[in-house]
């Protein structure tokens, strides 16, 4: 078997997310590349959670409409996902609570016999799954040793009981490749920022980026990183700017509602030229919307947030490697050009898990601008050819460093002089141009699929995963602008050369990328949109593409 999909479902509190991760690591050990989608409502205990783990020979970033195994810890897992069942789908379930056909395991009884707590039910069902899927016990043991942080031996015991209670129904073979790390999009962003030189991370919790805060806080237990969670998002961005002024590279993370509160500071970043990087994790809006469900509906908000005109970097990575690469680059570019940056992601990317191959070798180097020299003559906003002024942070001997959110002169003193105001506005335009030309050289438009096709799927962000697959299976070209501001229009046009039909695939209702392209003279006429909080599956997209082309 070349690929396999497993759905595991249960109540919030049953540990579905970690169980899914263990399943993912079983495949990982056997040399598969995995992707995991985790679906959960906004509540803490109860309700219905499920994870879909998909394993394949090649790198993937999407799940399918059907699954080969269902691991049911509650009845909902069987009842709600009937449409995902195909002829050979095997259901493993907790016999004590679930009525289904397949392999029933009496979880409570096993747990009771082993004196294990209820949350270990998932280990037991995983054991059963391993057996059913013909996965060797050794593999499971290895994975548990590495991935189960607490009560390993009891978990193993319970898993063994599950293993023994089930029977093999197929055999998922090892592929021989070595395992690679499996990380979430959030972790990829965090690691990319750290690689880019991050000194501090400031955030107020908000799905889907809270886990970056948790991840960074954990890293900071051993690593020299400042992680702070203040009273609200206004404080978050203002602290980041204070840190930036004082010479620390700082990033913040939030979602749309929190970003609203940051917009005033974001504009201050634009004017004061104190950089900051905002990780903006999109979720279904408007307002609180569906906090744990996905969307791509904040693109134009990110492009235009904050009063007045100033250059900004907006990157929208679509998978873990891109997230790592572009978080690194975003931090470097924001600092180099002294502009605010946005890493625009979404719940699917943030909380999805991906097999991760370090792309470090392919990450372009960003040269740093020439160093500033301290001294009484220092001007924080010195005019220069490309608009970028040499940057210093206090304390510097005999140097006064003034940053200012008012219109200011080169020294940073407020002014209302019309000529200086115009020059400073032009300084910002020059920085935008310089940033755009550097972006041009960074491969900001990804072209994939069948590059000979005259049909292109155009997408941004996390749907790249599903688009790549659909394009692969249907022989289409895929074009993904990773940088959305400054938009690499020329490269996009090149990428779309020879294309007769352009289909924009987006997870929003208004067609936000389509709008942006139209503004730049690219006017695709086919659109596929989904706006119910759920990401496209491979099959769904294929059907929609066929419909669109019909």
């Amino acid at each position, binding site marked *: 078997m070349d690929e396999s999909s497993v759905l595991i479902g249960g109540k919030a509190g049953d540990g579905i997310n970690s169980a899914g991760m263990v399943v993912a690591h079983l495949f990982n050990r056997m040399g598969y590349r995995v992707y995991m989608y985790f679906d959960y409502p906004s509540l803490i205990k109860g309700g219905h959670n499920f994870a879909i783990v998909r394993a394949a020979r090649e790198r993937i970033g999407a799940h399918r409409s059907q699954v080969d195994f269902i691991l049911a810890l509650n009845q909902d897992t069987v009842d709600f996902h009937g449409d995902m069942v195909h002829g050979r789908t095997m259901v493993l379930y907790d016999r004590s609570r679930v009525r289904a056909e397949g392999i029933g395991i009496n979880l409570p009884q096993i747990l009771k016999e082993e004196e294990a707590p209820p949350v270990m039910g998932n280990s037991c069902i995983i054991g059963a799954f391993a057996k059913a899927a013909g996965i060797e016990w050794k593999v499971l043991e290895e994975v548990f040793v*590495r991935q189960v942080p607490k009560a390993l031996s009891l978990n193993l015991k319970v898993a063994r009981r599950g293993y023994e209670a089930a029977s093999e129904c197929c055999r998922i073979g090892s592929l021989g490749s070595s395992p690679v790390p499996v990380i979430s999009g959030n972790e990829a962003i965090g690691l990319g920022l750290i690689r880019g030189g991050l000194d501090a991370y400031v955030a107020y919790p908000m799905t889907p980026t809270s886990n970056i805060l948790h991840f960074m806080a954990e890293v900071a237990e051993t690593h020299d990183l*400042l992680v702070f969670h203040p009273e609200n998002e206004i404080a978050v961005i203002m602290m980041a700017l204070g840190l930036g002024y004082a010479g620390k590279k700082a990033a913040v993370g939030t979602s749309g509602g929190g970003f609203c509160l940051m917009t005033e500071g974001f504009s201050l970043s634009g004017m*004061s030229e104190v950089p900051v990087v905002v990780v903006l994790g999109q979720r279904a809006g408007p307002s609180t919307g569906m906090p744990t469900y996905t969307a791509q509906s904040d693109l134009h908000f990110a492009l235009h947030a904050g009063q007045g005109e100033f250059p900004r970097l907006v990157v929208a990575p679509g998978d873990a490697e891109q997230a790592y690469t572009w978080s690194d680059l975003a931090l470097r570019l924001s600092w180099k050009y002294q502009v605010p940056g946005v890493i625009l992601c979404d719940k699917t990317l943030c909380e999805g898990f991906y097999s991760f191959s370090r792309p470090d070798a392919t990450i372009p180097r960003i040269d740093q601008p020439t160093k500033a020299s301290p001294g009484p003559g220092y001007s924080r906003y010195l005019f220069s050819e490309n608009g970028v002024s040499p940057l210093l942070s206090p*304390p510097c001997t005999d140097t006064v460093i003034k*940053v200012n959110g008012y219109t200011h002169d080169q020294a940073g003193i407020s002014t209302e002089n019309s000529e200086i105001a115009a020059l400073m506005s032009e300084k910002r335009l020059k920085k935008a141009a310089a940033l755009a030309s550097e972006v041009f050289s960074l491969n900001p438009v990804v072209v994939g699929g069948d590059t000979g096709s005259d049909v292109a799927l155009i997408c941004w962000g996390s749907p790249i995963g599903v688009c790549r697959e659909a394009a692969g299976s249907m022989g289409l070209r895929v074009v993904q602008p990773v940088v959305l501001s400054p938009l690499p229009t020329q490269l996009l046009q090149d990428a779309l050369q020879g294309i007769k039909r352009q289909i924009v695939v987006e997870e929003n209702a208004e067609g936000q990328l389509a709008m942006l392209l139209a503004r730049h003279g690219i006017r695709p006429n086919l659109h596929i949109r989904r706006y119910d909080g759920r990401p496209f599956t491979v099959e769904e997209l294929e059907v929609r593409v066929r419909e669109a082309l019909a």
Partner: protein
Amino acid sequence: MTARNLITGAQNTWCPGCGNFVIQFALKNTIAALGKEGVDSDRIVLVSGIGCHAKMADYLNVNSFYSIHGRTLPVATAIKMANPELVVIVCAGDGDCYAEGLDHLVFAAKRNADITLLVHNNRVYGLTTGQYTPTSPLGFRGRSTPSGTVEEPFNPLAIMLASGATFVARGCTRRMDLLQRTVMEGVHHPGFAFIDVLQVCASYYNLSDYYEKRVYEISDHDEGDFEAACRKAREWDYNADAPIGLGTIYRAKRPTLEERLSATRGTETDRETIIRNVLEKRT
């Protein structure tokens, strides 16, 4: 560093008679005095909000972050977190700090970052031409309340004491020397120093005579006694007539935010190591 003119060449645009001149003078002298104590002016960072008070950032020739309305304190706290060597002084307005960004004030007190805050409390929005603020008296007729406000003022000192501030003081621009001493005490205080400065606004709320008659320097007062501090803070409620005590009202010792942060922080600095460690665990 070389001796430096502490005043920039920027044109000063405060109104004649404005109390801000007095605060500027006090700050300038404080910075000069700190220089003599060995605190290099290069290490001073001034953070200001938006309002008449905030023009201080243009006028004092020191490092400065001229921020936005109401948001001085997170900026200042972060600067101190980033580099505890810096001496961070904040000039905020009463509209700025007691209305727009009040939450940050309570949290600054709670966190006890070692920064010094001067609230230029003219009890009016100066730069937007005269509206009431949280410390304007009940019935104040400003441009947004021509029939008089419908709210009693709050007492910022009482709120600071309740929020855990470790240094609480009051100054007045009618008492320049005392103000300067208080600012110096605030800067010396290791922790968050809050100074409410009753600042005369010559154009929109000229309380010169009012203050002249009522202010007095606090003496015979135990700055370490919290209950006494509360009583002293409540002596005048910013509304009804009462004697107005000036000077330091409360002082306590508590670890600063920076101290506590550095105690919990890891030490590994090699980025590649940290990335590899994480990825290893995720494999």
